[in-house]
């Protein structure tokens, strides 16, 4: 991955990190979108989509409810798509290390969003009197400052994530001993379990959940058996 690639991916990470909460919250930051875009930038949208789908299974468990702390998927998805798509070589361990790296970035991203919110609070407190007098420039300025801080946060996080995780992944894959099928099964099994657990958590109170889920599952397994 060249310096230009890292620069472009970092800008994408900033934009998608911003989308997570601040602007426009159109869910371009969801892994299935962000990782695909990232993969497309490196010339392999299909690889990006594959890892994006795996991350999306995790993301169903982490919804952005109010003031709670949740993972920031925008930057994480860009890093995930890039780590998986950069070589076009899906050797054993690549999916596992990619997903693990993206999850770590999502976790750090959630923490960094909290820091930006604290910074917003400091700025708001310092300008409390001006806001209390209805100063237009202050109200608009606070909003733009918050948006700017969040954009910078996403750019920096993506750039640092790519620079740290790329060599780590190379080193891990050089000594990776588990076979490709087992490596994939572990990561997909974990992702699927999280997704299924999330579906139960969200919808078990819906009348007839079990039957509706089983109906869908039967149809899904039927389609798999036909393929």
């Amino acid at each position: 991955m060249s310096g230009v690639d890292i620069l472009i991916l970092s800008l994408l990470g900033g934009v998608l990190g911003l989308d997570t909460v601040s602007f426009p919250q159109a869910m371009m930051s969801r892994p299935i979108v962000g990782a695909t875009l990232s993969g497309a930038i490196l010339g392999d949208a299909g690889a990006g989509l594959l890892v994006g789908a795996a991350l999306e299974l995790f993301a169903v468990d982490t919804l952005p409810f109010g003031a709670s702390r949740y993972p920031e998927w925008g930057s994480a998805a860009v890093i995930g798509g890039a780590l998986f798509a950069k070589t076009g070589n899906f050797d054993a361990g690549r999916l596992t290390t990619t997903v693990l790296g993206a999850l770590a970035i999502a976790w750090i991203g959630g923490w960094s969003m909290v820091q930006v919110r604290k910074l917003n609070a400091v700025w708001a407190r310092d300008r409390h009197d001006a806001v209390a007098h209805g100063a237009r420039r202050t109200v608009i300025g606070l909003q733009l400052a918050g948006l700017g801080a969040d954009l910078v946060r996403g750019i920096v996080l993506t750039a640092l994530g790519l620079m740290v995780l790329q060599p780590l992944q190379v080193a891990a894959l050089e000594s990776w001993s588990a076979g490709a099928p087992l490596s994939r099964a572990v990561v997909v099994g974990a992702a699927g379990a999280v997704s299924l657990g999330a579906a139960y958590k969200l919808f078990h109170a819906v009348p007839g959940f079990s039957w509706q889920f089983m109906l869908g599952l039967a149809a899904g397994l039927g389609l798999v058996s036909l393929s």
Partner: protein
Amino acid sequence: MTARPGGTTPTLPLTTRVAMFFRMLAVQGAWNYETLLGNGIGFCVEPALRRLPGGLDGDAYHSALARESQYFNAHPYLTSVAVGALARAELDGEAPERIERFRTALCGPLGALGDRLVWATFLPLCSFTALFVFGVGASPLVTVLTFLGLYNAGHVGLRVWGLQVGWRKGLAVAQSLGHPILQQAPLRLGRLASVMAGLSLPLAVHRIIGPGHVLLGGTLVGVLAGAIVLTRLHGRAEGWKVSVGILTAFALYSVIR
């Protein structure tokens, strides 16, 4: 603002409504743990407040902007209802105390309804639909466009509806939140999402894991067992964090062995 003969709804210029809509997309830009969405509400209502007597330099403008920039909390998409209603209340010249009481009263319903309708139902439904489309072999472009198209039809539609209904009803907007469509939607979308969850899971797992029915079968059994464990842990540990631990352990084992 224009006078209202016969109690008809006053009109806001299109440019003002467009400005308010685009600002609403950034309503959480200055989100913080003290005033939460407060500054964002002031930011979104501001284009309408310019129409108060005296304009940008008038006392009415400054008082209203200060009032609208205080603490506020709600679901971000449904703040559009509050933005429309508060803009109408300010331009109608409602008493400040009444507007402040109304603002406070709106927070709970707009937060609860939005969380239930969007975060807990519609977003997972769109995710499972995108995973289904991916699972049946769709291209990256089709998968991404399906997700973004479906989700944003609901997202943008909700914001536009909220701004319109808020402006039309003003302080009487609460009755619109009890509309049967809004009240029934979480249940109906939840049923659909339950089916899509079951449908998408084996297909998505199959496509990620690649060919081999034995491997797929073993993985699906693992998925079921893992989900049971995570469900039992409900409230004590988040599934994705547990997975980070498992994947880290597996990666260390595979590298060190």
